[in-house]
């Protein structure tokens, strides 16, 4: 498989638990105790109800590919030489959607389809940080 771009991540303080967990190979999400329910992206209030009763909970790391695009050029430094690569929005089992890379798949629309099952994986960045990405998941195959 071709290597993914390796962006520089500058963790926002409000998202530190997410990035700290990722560095350990774990996937966590912010959870509103008032709604209650998961949400993304992390922030100091719940975007559904405005509550500040936010905690972090482990999440399954499983979901479905909501949509994708395949970059054949990029103006972003560090991404230009990595084309073609696949950016995707994943809808997690817990409900929220998030942007990610789709990996372990050819950057070819014939090989990718919306609603395909995916699971989180972690790619190493230069500074010891790890970046959550998603790859196709065999239904029933992965613990």
């Amino acid at each position, binding site marked *: 498989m071709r290597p993914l771009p390796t962006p520089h991540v500058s963790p926002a303080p409000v998202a530190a638990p997410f990035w700290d967990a990722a560095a350990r190979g774990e996937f966590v999400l912010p959870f509103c105790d008032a709604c209650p329910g998961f949400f993304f*992206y992390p922030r100091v209030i719940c975007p559904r109800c405005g509550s500040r009763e936010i905690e972090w909970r482990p999440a399954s790391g499983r979901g479905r590919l909501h949509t994708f695009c*395949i970059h054949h050029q*990029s103006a972003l430094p560090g991404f230009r030489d990595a084309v073609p690569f696949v950016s995707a929005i994943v809808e997690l089992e817990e409900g929220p959607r998030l942007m990610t890379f789709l990996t372990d798949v050819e950057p070819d629309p014939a090989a990718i389809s919306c609603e395909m099952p995916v699971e989180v994986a972690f790619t190493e960045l230069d500074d010891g940080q790890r970046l959550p990405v998603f790859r196709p998941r065999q239904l029933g195959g992965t613990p």
Partner: protein
Amino acid sequence: MSTGVAIVGVGEADEIGVVPDKSALDLHAEGAINALGDAGLELGDVDALFTCGVDFTPTLLVGDYLGIKPRYSSSDSIGGSSFVAHVHEAIMAIDAGACEVALITHGETRRSNRKRGVPPRPTHDDPWMPDGQWERIYGVASPPAAYALAATRHMHEYGTTSEQLAEIAVATRNWAALNPRAFHREPITIDDVLASPWMVYPFHLLDCCLVTDAGGAVVVTSVERARRLGRPVVEVLGSGVAQSHYAISQMPDLTESPARISGDVAFAQAGVSRDDVDVAQIYDSFTYTVLVELEDLGFCAKGEGGDFVSGQRTAPGGDFPMNTSGGGLSYTHPGMFGIFLLIEAVRQLRGECEERQVADAELAVVSGMGHYLSSAATAVLART
């Protein structure tokens, strides 16, 4: 019905396209003077200024350059739809007595800025902001990728095809062929669109708007004052503005834009039906942008946009004349296109479009779309 407000002057900058020897402000000012001249007004008549896309304090910068001291101003900045939203705001400001003559200007030199090494417009570039923290790191930091993500989902849910998207590019180019100021005027085919290089799947190069240098302006005042100017009066019958998200991963439904809300508001206020529309100016940052707007504005049902645009329906001679200037795809697109939608709609309603004139055009719809399908502004205009 009517808002009681009219667009009385429109104008582009003297030159548009590739204008390496002028600044964005020069283009604002040329557009402003041309639009005021068109209205039979002068800078001294202007008491409200609306603009965005330049600097941190846009109306201060443009007001300074123009030498005016407006008693009301707004730099509402919601992407390319902003200038249509400025009309909506001008209506409220005029209605409230906050101003009488509103000038809306836009100018960008996005194409030539590249050669000068000037960033296109102010950006925060703060990695703690949601786009920097959660999207840019995955390569999504510009409109092509964001709109591509939405288009892929639409294709999945409704079977929309690349050929249907290409219909829009071809029809729009055929209008551009009739506009002497259009950037690209040579006809293209659906096969040409499909054979053009991939930008970001599912968009080919010819699914994407131009990057040009351009400016323009419109002048808005009360219908009452407009009648005294002795020029054709184009009334704003209805207008609406809506927004739903900033980051594309936060878009509630990737196949439905806020034009559904802004369109319903504007048509309800106007008291006209979609069937009454003679000519449509629909923001075309990408071919897909048009398709989703047509659905959300109610010209066809959700999911039927592909069928709606097939068979060159929106081309010259088709039964739904759309983007008659050649649009952002072929006429000009300096980074935001809203002002040019208004300019072309007014010219069509006045019957000033010569070769590309739509016969008996009396009612027009203008649909602005901003940022990542994030904001929409709709205006229904009529010659009265």
